[in-house]
């Protein structure tokens, strides 16, 4: 079960089960099947509902808006998530506005898929995790793919509700194996949040909150620390990033007394910042140390692999933070 294939299957299921679904994006039709091959095969079977577009991200978003307002279920692929910048006006001033500003007279359930993230040497404009700028857009859901979440569930969810969605797919997930029932760690689910730990929560000394590709890195470290050093922490992997379901985080961090957040985006007004603010308030006086936010350096992502590795969050930064938090 390779993530890209599962995701493709989820899109296929969407097209099959819901006639309203339209896939739209650059170079997504066969034989090419998208820059990351996720949509391969779909245009052959659904030629009129899998539509390759000119290089017009703004119009991809705008057409999606119109499709959604007219009762369809557009799922747009933005070739590199970096180019979601060109959809910002449509998302902020159109798509997420309609339902509320029309007092519920219309809905605009457009879904945007954004292949994101670095560690591939693609350089400053093809490696970013720009979702941080979309957290907190009123009436937008930001959801992250991970190896711990079946993408079918995600798309079933999106099609069953009316809020627009930004679905973040880290590019490094595509070739990886799903880890829906990982060995080595106890796995439970609370809503969209997956809980992983080697031992029961009461024996964990910290809570780690991570999403997307970074969640996989974190899981490996959590397992390694448990096996090799008997350092036990609980990892929470939410799918829904904004708005957040705070309950699982609150419960866990209250129990462990220590919280670390991990994300690949740059530091400052990041995902972890909100988590920290909310948890510092809700658990005021109940944590034994401040919330620790792990995020990338506040600069461009270098092409050079060596420089990129130092600038972007990866296993070393995560491990250091977890060790510290578990103390």
């Amino acid at each position, binding site marked *: 079960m390779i993530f890209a294939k599962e995701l493709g299957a989820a899109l296929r299921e969407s097209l099959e089960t819901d006639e309203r679904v339209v896939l739209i994006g650059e170079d997504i039709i066969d034989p090419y099947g998208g820059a990351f091959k996720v949509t391969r095969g779909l245009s052959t079977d659904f030629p*009129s509902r899998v539509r390759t577009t000119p290089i017009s991200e*703004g*119009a991809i978003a*705008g057409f999606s808006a119109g499709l959604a*307002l007219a009762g369809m279920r557009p799922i747009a692929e933005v070739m590199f998530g970096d180019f979601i910048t060109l959809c910002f*006006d449509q998302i902020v001033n*159109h798509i997420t506005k*309609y339902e*509320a500003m029309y007092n519920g007279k219309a809905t605009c359930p457009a879904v945007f898929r954004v292949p994101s993230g670095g560690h591939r040497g693609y350089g400053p404009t093809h490696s970013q995790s720009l979702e941080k700028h979309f957290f907190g857009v009123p009436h937008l859901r930001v959801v992250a793919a991970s190896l711990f979440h079946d993408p079918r569930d995600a798309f079933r969810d999106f099609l069953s509700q009316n809020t627009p969605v930004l679905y973040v797919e880290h590019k490094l997930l595509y070739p990886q194996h799903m880890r829906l029932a990982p060995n080595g760690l106890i796995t439970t689910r609370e809503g969209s949040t997956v809980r992983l730990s080697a031992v029961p929560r009461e024996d964990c000394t910290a809570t780690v909150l991570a999403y997307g590709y970074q969640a996989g890195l974190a899981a490996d470290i959590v397992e390694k620390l448990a096996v090799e050093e008997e350092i036990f922490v609980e990892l929470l992997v939410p799918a829904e990033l904004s708005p957040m379901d705070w309950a699982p985080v609150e419960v866990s961090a209250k129990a462990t007394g220590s919280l670390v957040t991990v994300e690949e985006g740059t530091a400052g007004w990041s995902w972890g910042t909100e988590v920290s603010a909310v948890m510092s308030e809700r658990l005021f006086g109940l944590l034994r140390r401040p919330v620790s936010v792990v995020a990338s350096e506040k600069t461009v992502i270098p092409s050079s692999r060596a420089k990129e590795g130092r600038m972007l969050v990866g296993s070393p930064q995560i491990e250091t933070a977890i060790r510290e938090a578990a103390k």
Partner: protein
Amino acid sequence: MTITLPNFLSPEPEKENPAAPAIPLPAEPEAAITGATTLSKAVTVPLGEGEAATLSQEAAVNESEAAAESAVAAEGAAWVTRQTVVAGSRELGLYRGMRFIRRFEETLLGLFEEGILNGTTHACIGQEADAAGVIEHLREGDHIFSNHRCHGHYLAWTGDALGLMAEIMGKEAGVCAGIGGSQHICAEGFMSNGVQGGILPTAAGIALAKKLKGEDTISVVFMGDGTLGEGAVYETLNMASLWELPLLIVLEDNEWAQSTPVALNTAGSMRARFEAFGLPVSEVESTDVLEISSHAEELVEAVRTTGKTHVLVIHTYRLCHHSKSDDHRPEEEVALRWQTEPLAVHRQRLAEADWQAIDASVEEELAGIVAKARALP
């Protein structure tokens, strides 16, 4: 009819705008603001749900006449009828539609001055023939996307003056519960957004939905000349042309974008900008509703039958301020254009008694709407 209209709402053209021309135009009678005598003759189909009861008597009187109406009305279902049939005459109906829009907007501007309204508004005074002439040819199931200057389009389509007035007053009974306000309106088959440009791909997306669903209805979008500055427009032209979408783009070139004349905003040729993408363009320089309507009829039909995008460029003029603020245009320029404003042009083919009666009925209806809207919680 007890409400007092502010001075500049007097129907004499000279008072409608201080820059209005001195040359004689068909004078508007005093009756226009008292308007009791000819009411029963003029009113046919109710405008807005709230009005239905009040006006049902008159409507009944004219029902048989309306039934015998022209092909245009017959093919057009509720929407068209509402706007175009007055006492069995499409021409009077078009006049009434335009007159209603004009007076609605003038009333709005007056209410702003009074401090009753807040926010901002963009009146389409001088451009009423575009809304009336185009929307006449649309029918149930079609969809209109409009922009910041949307009241005329909204009224021509829905007739829901009370809902719009209440909306702009910020009342709960407004069509969007006062949330959207003047620029962000939604009703069956109608939407508007005050952010320039982005409505173009949205309207095209609606057209795509229609195509995918196999509907024979069309999507129509209204844009201004200044909006040609937005890149989103061209992305849309390209895709709408490539994908052959049932979209009608109506460009209302009113020569100005806020304070900027078209020459400072628009290089080259408007027409060529559409044709470069392989889209057929029909261009009309007119404030005559019938001339505009006949172009629109052809294009609406073309979009409907071919399923392909067409463009209607209407060269017109905005006679009022951009919104409520200063107007720095040369006075003579504006004055000259008052001579060819749509109502004056169209009146020339109507019997004076007929349009006077309509004016009166519009005054009455509008007064009722304002009173009702004011009284809303």
